[in-house]
């Protein structure tokens, strides 16, 4: 999967075979989850120095509990810790919690906290910090991720190094909820007061927060007291470089060591470039189109199936991401533990026309709503539009800024739209809220009693394989009904200088820098 050897894989099949192979190893080792990370020359030497990382956009806020923007987490991934964290294979490994037990009735989880951890301000870390953090994380008036904790009734301190989560129903994906990413970071209570979390950051992670110059950069320094291994560089500068040409030029001139701002169309050229290392991996994201079930004729399954049969996902993925995305037909891509091996929609214009005729629909024009927040969806939609036209469906593409888009979506003012869900670490994230008839994010209005039953069952199973099978069964139904028409999964891509060692590419797109060294 990585391309540091300079050889270019000859296409998707080889990439996926390799991914599948590594995933099998990972699954055998952990019994859960899927995906893998690339660790390049992890054990080579290095000595301090300042690592300059160019990221394509700026954090919206330093407050990890409030933010919904990925740059915030890219940066603060390196400052804060969570109770548990995703391992390279996306199973969960100890972080601030060293181990945990689940009660027999499955309603109490006990986490034992790591000893001798200190905050960057020198104070000792303990159970009170965890309780205070979760009080804030679970407050939906403040925090963006409160929805993950609907089943948690209380987080309480047992002793200085033990906390308990009390639940009102079994929650098998609790680890993903508490440790999926730094939106659930443990923060010091003294920063919760006032606006401390918005203007600074004090964590327990490998790097301390030094400064933030809006529009320019964020500077971190090595935390010598870090409880884990590393860090190996003295300072990290995250520079915000939106223009990919500027980012890549800075990489080539050596002013930047590592960047995530790699335009898909440049990947081929960079793979052949011995001055740049490239790492790439299928992400946990997926992009889809869905239609408004409250509007005719989109409430007709045959019409939605016709629209799904009409499109060629290979071409759509190509238009959106060149070779850096994989066409998919379900939420979790191949290689993931949660993947559903079900792909009933080939590109079949004739079947599409037949289904439209069967539904008695002719001269249909679709109002397809897009947002320029995600430019690749606009490129994808152009292909969708032309392929729908091939089966006699006209398209009005309407592109809005994201604020207006959300407003229109909330009012139900659309026939169909294209959007995605990011970082789906668990089947629960991918399916329940989106497709359950009472799901909070079932904006399209899909309702299928059998799907509801399967999703509800999956929620309370503790065995991951059983859960996966329930999600897979539900996925088959909702794919057939075209609740969503899944389209593509993009790759996570990083580029770095050959002098930089120990870079890990994760499917969640985060840049974890504690193992990175700058070599000679």
């Amino acid at each position, binding site marked *: 999967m990585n391309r540091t050897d300079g050889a270019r894989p000859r296409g998707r099949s080889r990439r996926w075979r390799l991914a599948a192979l590594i995933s099998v190893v990972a699954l055998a080792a952990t019994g859960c989850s899927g995906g893998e990370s690339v660790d390049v020359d992890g054990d080579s030497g290095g000595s301090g120095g300042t690592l300059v990382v160019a990221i394509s956009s700026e954090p919206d806020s330093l*407050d990890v509990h409030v933010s919904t923007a990925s740059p915030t987490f890219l940066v603060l991934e390196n400052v804060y810790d969570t109770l548990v964290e995703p391992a390279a294979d996306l199973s969960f490994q100890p972080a601030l919690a060293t181990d945990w037990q689940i009660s027999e009735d499955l309603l109490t989880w006990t986490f034992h906290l790591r000893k001798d951890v200190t905050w960057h301000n020198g104070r000792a870390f303990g159970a009170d910090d965890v309780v205070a953090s979760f009080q804030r994380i679970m407050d939906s008036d403040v925090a963006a991720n409160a929805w993950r904790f609907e089943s948690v009734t209380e987080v309480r301190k047992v002793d200085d190094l033990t906390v308990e989560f009390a639940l009102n129903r079994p929650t098998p994906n609790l680890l993903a909820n508490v440790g999926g990413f730094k939106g659930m970071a443990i923060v010091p209570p003294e920063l919760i007061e006032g606006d401390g979390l918005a203007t600074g950051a004090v964590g327990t992670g490998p790097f301390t927060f030094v400064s933030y110059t809006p529009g320019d950069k964020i500077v971190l320094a090595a935390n010598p007291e870090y409880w884990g291994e590393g860090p190996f560089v003295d300072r990290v500068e995250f520079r915000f470089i939106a223009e990919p*040409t500027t980012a890549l030029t800075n990489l080539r001139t050596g002013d930047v060591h590592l960047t995530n701002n790699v335009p898909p169309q440049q990947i081929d050229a960079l793979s052949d470039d011995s001055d740049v290392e490239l790492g790439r991996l299928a992400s946990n994201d997926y992009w889809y189109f869905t239609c408004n079930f409250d509007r005719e004729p989109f409430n007709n399954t045959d019409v939605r199936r016709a629209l799904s049969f009409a499109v060629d996902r290979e071409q759509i993925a190509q238009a959106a991401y060149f070779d850096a995305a994989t066409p998919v037909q379900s939420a979790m891509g191949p290689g993931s533990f949660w993947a559903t091996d079900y792909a009933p929609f080939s590109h079949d214009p004739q079947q599409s026309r037949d289904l439209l005729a069967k539904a008695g629909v002719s001269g249909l024009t679709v109002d397809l709503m897009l947002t320029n927040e995600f430019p690749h969806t606009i490129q994808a939609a152009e292909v969708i539009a032309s392929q729908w036209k091939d089966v006699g469906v006209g398209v009005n593409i309407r592109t809005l800024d*994201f604020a207006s888009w959300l407003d229109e979506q909330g009012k139900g003012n659309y026939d169909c739209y294209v959007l995605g869900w990011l970082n789906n670490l668990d089947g629960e994230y991918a399916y329940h809220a989106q497709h359950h008839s009472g799901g909070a994010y079932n904006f399209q209005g899909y309702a299928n009693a059998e799907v509801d039953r399967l999703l509800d069952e999956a929620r309370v199973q503790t065995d991951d394989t059983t859960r996966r099978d329930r999600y897979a069964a539900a996925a088959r139904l909702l794919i057939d009904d075209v609740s969503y028409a899944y389209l593509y999964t993009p790759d996570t891509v990083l580029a770095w200088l050959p002098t930089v060692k120990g870079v890990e590419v994760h499917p969640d797109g985060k840049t974890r820098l504690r193992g990175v060294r700058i070599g000679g």
Partner: protein
Amino acid sequence: MGRYLLRRLLHTVLAMLGVSIGVFLIMHLVPGDPIRLALGTRFDPEVYQALRSRAGLDRPLLAQYGTWLSHAVTGDFGVSFRSGQPVGELLWQRLGPTATLAGAALLVALSIALPVGILSAVWSGSVIDRIATALSQLWVSVPDFWSGIMYILLFALVLGWLPASGYVSPLDDPVQALRHLVLPALTVGLISGSILTRFVRSAVLEALNQDYTRTARAKGLSRWQTVRRHVLPNAWIPIVTVAGLQLGFLLGGVVVVEVIFEWPGLGRLAYDAVIRRDYSLLQGAVLVIATVFLTINLFVDILCGYLDPRVRRP
């Protein structure tokens, strides 16, 4: 001069008030709001209403504007909806880089426009005039995002003379600050300079064709004496006016160049604030940009009044 100044100041304050009301209304009337955007696709109507009311967005528009204005006159612009940081601080951090880039770009523009514009007017129709006209036409037509990237590729990547992007404060490291300033200043300065060159040329040309110029020449003054004593004093007013407008544009309207060169300027801040519906930040940013713009205009008016006393009369 005193009454003239007072009148101009009053106009400036009224214009600022108008701008702030206009921006406030437009931002609140277009669809989408910061709370909806922060919730993203994970939308819950109850949480949405609670957050809106906490942020005071459910109050009548007039009351919201009143609160904002009463704080703004004391210099308190509130905190950014998006990041929670004080707006005043965010704006202050951007003023230095913005002023540096605008000043340097204007310097580049004027040092091209004045000599080239005057020469091509005086030698109108000559080869020099034709070349200058063609070049300025070319530079006006070249988009800044293209020329900027070309400069980066040439001077940073191929020749390795200058850094590709970034901002360094002159207070931290004057040499590095200058090195980082050259490419963005050239990118906007050359375009601005091309526009100004055409104005200088036509202003000088117009003055050259006046009767008083012909009279001065007939009285025996040399061509350059005429230009210096009679033509330039009359051409200054349109040139200063247009240069002032250009400076105003450079202070807020070079978003693309700020993006390409990773320059932490005001234009980008205001653009992001619009996209994110960050009302408080946008109100502050627009007010600052408008204030600077109107101050430059005020300064231009005063300068014009000084250059030509006729302007001062009501």
